[in-house]
């Protein structure tokens, strides 16, 4: 193994910046008076921006680091940007929320940064143990975040549920990793890929390892049937945390699935394909059908997040089916996740605002008539929902479009038809909120106070992004294609 060099540290620059910033926030917290806690938020935001800058700068130093356990490649870089974006939007959305709910503690920002750090490590890792470490860092931070409203029963429930089921699932992943190591003698993805693609190399129990690892990661991205925790946790956790939960750990876990199942274990073709295919089918259908019955907006968005994971899995199945031309499918997944991050974080932080103090007003009916009290807020939520349901001129449309295109290219016509019909079903429940806001008479119970400026800025940023991706996707598609290139 080569000795550690300065270059190795440069290649994990974003993670270093984030972790240092988190530590700084944590150390500074006792010295900052309660009135000035918001200052910590701005420090964290600066940290996130600096991490982004670091990510941009280290592009010219790409390559493996720490003996091949981490790779600074366009794939990682893309995901790091995405995770930082999710973290920044969450942060902007949570400042005022924490004040209103009287849980404004500096630890929140530190945990958020640590959660992001873990996720960043996951996406850059090319070694199974490193992936596991990243996953644990991100998970433990988010477990705590889910229970951040200590006085609230639901928040506690969410925390506990997430923690218990989450640990159980990580155990599965670890078990899978152990199997892989036992079968092949390595945990490095590159070596794994070489060993498995060597002629005659077909370890007998590899399928067990695959399934175990898939269960562990499937939990993180909440594929059916490992989604049971999702609605409860998303509903119970503080809404800005839900925004983060629904995007960052999920995107990171998807990145890992791409790296592991389409990279390292690529040679185990058929089984992986069918795993992806079946989970895609189940996840889309169940997510959408269950969402139909939800009246609680947070729960509705939770099920919608499950359904979106299903569409992403369609893109992955397409990439798997396309064999050597997997690039299109992978790029479609990357594009989808970016669009999804923009839409979902924005939707949840807006819901956090609408729910008011103590998150009392989460029902769709609580928004009745909101459009006439707060036309701007209602229009904003409508645009987000329209994008989530995939109407043209928004990011959601192109996200679906590229995934479906990849699927059709890979001749998965049946799966594409199911996905398309699912997206029609989805329109119904997204519109439920719109109906309440615009078409029913009455006064909204939901908070009709004006948007605080950090939230407004976050929403404006998301909307600009959504329309930019929806109208001029070309530059972004190039980026996604570039990011997809390091994978086979």
């Amino acid at each position: 193994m080569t000795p550690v060099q300065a270059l190795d540290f440069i290649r994990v620059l974003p993670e270093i910046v984030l972790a240092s910033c988190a530590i700084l926030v944590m150390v500074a917290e006792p010295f900052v008076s309660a009135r000035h806690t918001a200052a910590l938020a701005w420090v964290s935001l600066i940290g996130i921006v600096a991490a982004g800058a670091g990510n941009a700068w280290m592009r010219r130093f790409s390559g493996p680091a720490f003996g091949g356990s981490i790779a600074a490649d366009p794939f990682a870089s893309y995901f790091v940007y995405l995770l930082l974006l999710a973290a920044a939007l969450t942060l902007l959305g949570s400042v005022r929320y924490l004040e209103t709910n009287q849980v404004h503690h500096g630890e929140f920002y530190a945990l958020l940064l640590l959660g992001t750090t873990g996720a960043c490590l996951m996406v850059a890792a090319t070694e199974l143990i490193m992936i596991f470490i990243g996953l644990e860092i991100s998970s433990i931070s988010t477990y705590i975040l889910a229970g951040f409203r200590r006085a609230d029963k639901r928040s506690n429930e969410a925390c506990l549920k997430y923690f218990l089921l989450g640990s159980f699932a990580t155990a599965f992943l670890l078990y899978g990793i152990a199997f892989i190591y036992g079968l092949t003698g390595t945990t490095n993805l590159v070596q794994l890929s070489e060993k498995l693609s060597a002629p005659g190399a077909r370890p007998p129990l590899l399928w067990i390892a695959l399934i175990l690892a898939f269960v562990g990661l499937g939990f993180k991205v909440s594929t059916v049937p490992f989604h049971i925790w999702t609605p409860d946790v998303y509903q119970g956790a503080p809404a800005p945390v839900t925004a983060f939960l629904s995007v960052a750990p999920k995107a990171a876990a998807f990145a890992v699935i791409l790296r592991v199942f389409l990279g390292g274990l690529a040679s185990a073709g058929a089984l992986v394909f069918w795993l992806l295919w079946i989970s895609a089918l189940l996840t889309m259908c169940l997510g959408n059908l269950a969402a139909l019955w939800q009246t609680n907006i947070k729960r509705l968005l939770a099920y919608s997040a499950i359904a979106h994971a299903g569409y992403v899995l369609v893109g992955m199945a397409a990439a798997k089916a396309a064999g050597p031309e997997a690039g299109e499918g992978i790029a479609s997944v990357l594009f989808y996740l970016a669009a999804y991050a923009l839409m979902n974080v924005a939707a949840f932080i807006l819901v956090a605002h609408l729910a008011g103090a103590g998150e009392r007003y989460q029902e769709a009916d609580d928004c009745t008539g909101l459009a006439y009290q707060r036309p701007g807020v209602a229009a904003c939520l409508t645009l987000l929902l329209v994008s989530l349901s995939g109407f043209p001129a928004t990011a959601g449309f192109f996200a679906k479009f590229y995934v479906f295109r990849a699927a059709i290219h890979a001749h998965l016509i049946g799966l594409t038809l199911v996905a398309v019909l699912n997206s029609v079903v989805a329109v119904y429940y997204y519109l439920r909120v719109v109906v309440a806001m615009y078409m029913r008479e009455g006064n909204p119970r939901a908070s009709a106070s004006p948007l605080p400026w950090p939230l407004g800025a976050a929403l404006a940023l998301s909307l600009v992004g959504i329309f930019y991706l929806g109208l001029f996707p070309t530059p972004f598609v190039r980026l996604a294609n570039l990011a997809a290139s390091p994978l086979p």
Partner: protein
Amino acid sequence: MSHILTILTFLPLVGATVVAFIPRTATAKIRWVALVTSLVTLAWGIGLFLGFDLHHPGLQFVENYPWIESPPVAYHLGVDGLSVLLLLLTVFLAPLAILASWRSIGERVKEFHLLMLALETGMNGVFVAQDLFLFFVFWEAMLIPMYFLIGIWGHERRIYAAVKFILYTMLGSALMLVAILYLYNATGTLELPAILAQLSGPAPPISPKGARWLFLAFFLAFAIKVPLFPLHTWLPDAHVEAPVAGSVILAGVLLKMGTYGILRFCLPLFPEASRQFAPVISVLAVIGILYGSLVSMVQPDLKKLVAYSSVAHLGFVVLGIFAFNPMGLEGAIYQMCNHGVSTGALFILVGMLYDRRHTRLISEFGGLSSVLPVLGAFFLFVTLSSLGLPMLNGFVGEFLIILGAFHRRALYGALAATGVVLAAVYLLWMYQRVFLGEVRSEKNRALADCSGREKLILTAMAAVILGMGVYPQPFLRRLDQSVAEVLARVQPGEEAALVFGSPKGWNDASRVATSSATTFHAPWLLPLPGPERERGPLDLTRDSRRELRDAAPAELKGIAGVACTPGEAPRAGMNRR
């Protein structure tokens, strides 16, 4: 490249942006901005209509810029005769719809006009897009304003109707999206002309079986929109619950998008499959005609009656399209416009009654013509146009369609003709119950007759109805090229009938074909020649005309005065009034 079509498409959106910046309390200003925007768009549309070059085959006013790199989507706009006509219809109905809502929309005025103008942009976009992807974008984007129009300003069951409307349409368009992607995957392009060229080339990239499935996917999307029986169930709800402007636009333009899509995509892209499915579709169209008429007859609600009559009228249009002959096709397209104007006018009239009485139940009215003589007269006029009285627009279209249907299969023609009779029954009976007889309800005695604004709307519509009925030539002439091109693909040989039994001999009996039957890109049917007129470069000699005439299919000669010498030409066959 000129930007005529871009301006036409996005002008209303500019107006919408202006409206967005007007304070919501300044309702008068909002109304005027919206109206003026739509009138300027109308003027622009008329300019486009007049500037349309009859002699130019293919697309005109083309704008083509690359938009998205992968998939290669182009911002490709262009119009042919079919689009021009429907564009004109759209920009004509939009200001009338705004004007018709002048008083009846009192709440949320700003949102209403914003959405109306956005809707107009979407509709124009659908008719000018020449790239499958761009078409799809407009097609979907237009749903959202319509959804809000129904859902916010509609009547009691508006939410149900709005959701039903959007889900039905989305279902169809979702399948269409898959078909578009499949086509793209097979051909590597999304531009309609390029795809057409590949599909009609020597080695089409899609198997006949694949083409059948693709045809069905596209057709389902359009058939829902039309709506073809049995996919029509969203229509009565949406039309009845929508506010007046919504109903006018729905009936006037949105339904036409379905038939436009069939003509623009289904037939040219999948001619073989179209021929295979034509019998089934024709039967469904005939069922639609009869079913729509019969159900109309028993409606107690005026608006529902008009809504169901749309099912019947659009059945005519589909029947005409799938007759695959010039009469049927030109009639169908003409009928699309007629229906837009006549049914739009009927909805406006029903809306005017509703504004006065706040009911639409036929039983609540009776003897209104003594109270509302002007409104009654307009109502009668529009009713007559809708049921196809000669000299009014409906007649031209329906007659040509029935002629075409007869040519395809006598039974279709006969049944469709029954539909005309039924239309007379339900419309006249409705008129009788509402306007004739004694005034039964005391509430009806003190109603005010048409205001100046209402007279203006109705006069404009009546003028168009009369104009289109008496002198359809400017409209039909613009269709020749498009119809010939569609026919050349779907029923090669039939377009030759355009040369001989030209249905456009209607009022211009001296017009004779001037083009060779074998080249479709030659200017068809120039607005020519009485013998006294100058001979154009494309004129055929007397001998070559005779040759062409003799080459016509035998059964065609019996129709539309084919068997006559060029000089006296179609007069014998076509001037039956």
